[in-house]
């Protein structure tokens, strides 16, 4: 049985356990129909030309873990930004861990999708927002929708700001030989509210894990959301991250994606600007080695006038790694005075590494400022010599240059402890001790 068939048959059992009266039931069934029809994306599709899910489909993934696993905090502490106090929504093999979590209902709701989908008090929010911005067409998104049951749920009412950042962490323990996870999260920031989220997927063993995640984010008028994706997973972990963001007037949403780990990572990051004076920012640092593969597919849809979008992705590719950056910008005819910037700069540090980078601009308005640029280069030999001539060994000099190259993307990270952590991850990934405190 291949993975698609297994998912289709598992769905029946899954739905039997769920409340068929709920409106979400219909949404799931519709979504499953779409997935059944389309199946997994193939390399024949333009959007999946450089990323193949074929080998994953041959693995006999468990769709549901057979048992609940417990983790000791001390064993996983290092995956948290433990230097600061945070709210935590933690899952172990797809199941909520109340022991590792710290949720709240104090003025804001930082809790679970499973409660939001089932408890009457959240019905209104679910009716208004659930599956409203996620694609009903993209096959992996609909696969996730079909199995939507658990994930993070965050609701920030008007004028509120949680006391601390929220960490969403998905651990997998390796208790299953191979496990597929489909977390589904919903984040709503109402008018003039503010929120910071750090998301991480972490496999703790070398067993195969395949995560197909969907996150819907709604930023109401003047809301400010900073979202950080820390992708530093084990070498046997694959992730398809589908994130959909809908913004209203004057809202600011920034998504930082730090891709250092994992076997295969596909980021589908989609912004929809449903209002004016919106700012959408996407920043990425990708540092790969080995046979790692990361594919960033971004979309910004400028639907209304007077908005901005900024994309700045930096990539460093070593050994046999492969990278993809595909940045699509759509500017509708009425979206005049749009400012859309896109930048993708890459360094190949090995002859065998490859990067495919492509801007995709569909501009229908005439009064827009749109700039894009992509570069692929090697490290500057003159700069290397300059550093070496000051006594910095070649390896460290290379690392320092790569660090410098990636570093400016970090300027906009608002949580200092996270910035320090990312800096350390970068230094680790580059295999050096830098001679100064990061």
């Amino acid at each position, binding site marked *: 049985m291949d993975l698609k068939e297994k998912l289709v048959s598992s769905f029946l059992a899954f739905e039997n356990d769920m409340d068929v009266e709920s409106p979400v039931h219909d949404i799931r069934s519709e979504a499953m129909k779409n997935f059944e029809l389309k199946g997994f994306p193939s390399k024949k599709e333009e959007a999946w030309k450089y990323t193949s899910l074929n080998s994953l489909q041959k693995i006999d993934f468990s769709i549901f873990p057979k048992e609940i696993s417990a983790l000791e905090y001390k064993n996983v502490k290092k995956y948290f930004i433990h230097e600061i106090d945070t709210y935590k929504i933690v899952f172990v093999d797809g199941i909520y861990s109340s022991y590792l979590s710290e949720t709240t209902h104090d003025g804001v709701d930082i809790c679970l999708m499973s409660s939001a989908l089932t408890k009457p008090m959240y019905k209104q929010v679910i009716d208004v927002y659930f599956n409203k911005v996620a694609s009903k067409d993209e096959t992996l998104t609909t696969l996730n929708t079909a199995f939507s049951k658990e994930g993070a749920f965050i609701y920030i009412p008007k004028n509120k700001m949680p006391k601390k950042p929220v960490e969403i962490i998905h651990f997998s323990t390796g208790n299953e030989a191979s496990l597929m996870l489909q977390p589904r999260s919903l984040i709503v920031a109402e008018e003039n509210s503010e929120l910071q989220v750090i998301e991480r997927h972490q496999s703790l063993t070398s067993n195969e894990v395949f995560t197909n995640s969907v996150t819907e984010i709604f930023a109401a008028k003047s809301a400010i959301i900073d979202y950080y994706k820390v992708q530093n997973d084990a070498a046997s972990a694959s992730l398809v991250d589908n994130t959909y963001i809908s913004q209203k007037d004057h809202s600011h949403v920034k998504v930082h994606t730090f891709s250092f780990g994992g076997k295969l990572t596909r980021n589908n990051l989609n912004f929809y600007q449903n209002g004016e004076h919106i700012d959408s920012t996407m920043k990425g640092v990708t540092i790969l080695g080995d046979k790692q593969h990361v594919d960033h597919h971004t979309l910004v849809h400028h639907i209304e006038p007077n908005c901005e979008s900024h994309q700045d992705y930096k990539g460093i590719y070593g050994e046999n790694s492969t990278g993809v950056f595909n940045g699509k910008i759509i500017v509708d005819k009425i979206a005049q005075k749009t400012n859309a910037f896109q930048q993708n700069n890459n360094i190949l540090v090995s002859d065998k590494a490859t990067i495919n980078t492509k801007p995709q601009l569909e501009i229908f308005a005439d009064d827009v400022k749109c700039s894009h640029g992509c570069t692929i280069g090697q490290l*500057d*030999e*003159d*700069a290397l*010599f*300059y*550093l*070496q*001539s*000051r*006594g*910095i*060994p*070649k390896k*460290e*000099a290379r690392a*320092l*240059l790569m*660090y*410098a*190259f*990636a*570093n*400016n993307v970090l300027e906009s990270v608002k949580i200092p402890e996270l910035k320090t952590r990312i800096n350390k991850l970068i230094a680790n990934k580059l295999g050096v001790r*830098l*001679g*100064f*405190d990061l």
Partner: protein
Amino acid sequence: MLKINNLHARVEDKEILKGINLEINAGEVHAIMGPNGSGKSTLAAVIAGKEEFEVTEGSVELDGENLEDDAPEERAHKGIFLSFQYPVEIPGVSVTNFMKTAINESRKAKGLEDMPANQMLKLIREKAELLEIDRKFLSRSLNEGFSGGEKKRNEIFQMAMLEPKLAILDETDSGLDIDALRIVANGVNKLKSKDNAVLVITHYQRLLDYIVPDFVHVLHNGKIVKSGGKELALELEEKGYDWLKQETVA
């Protein structure tokens, strides 16, 4: 201290240095002058170990040791410093962090611990003062957006931090106004001792009024065609280089 024997170097198929002999002792200041393209920067880069240039014959020795197999950083650890004619811009690394890395890597190579942070700060402050460098300047990205003069002053600041045995100043005077020239020359002179040496590469006599050489050499077409005392610099200033070219042809 430095002994260059019959040094030949080339890049790709082009021979640039064609048999250079030069000996510099501790406590001395040497100047190399010569027209554009004569190989001055190449000589400096070869001494500092730039791999782009292939040494085809001859040797460079420091304190009797052949540097042939030493990477640029190893030469730096042994006390060679090159002030670049064109310092490289490195966005994303501050002057301070760069200096910390350089100092601590040099210490590591000597088996020493990192320099304590407060001591490092004190040293940076002291040397910045010597070169009249503003503190704000130190947190800027290395050479990025610096004016020509700022870059050169920053090179000498680095020299002051690293206290090399042999400092090679490649056209450090170009891009400096007269005040900056004085500051830079003063910095170099303060660092000068009987145990170290300076090799000044310059086009003009101007800098040599401040950093007074013991010996002046004229490089032309990859060879030292004339050596003399400091009065040779004046002579070159007066006559230009054309007379030399004729002399060598004759």
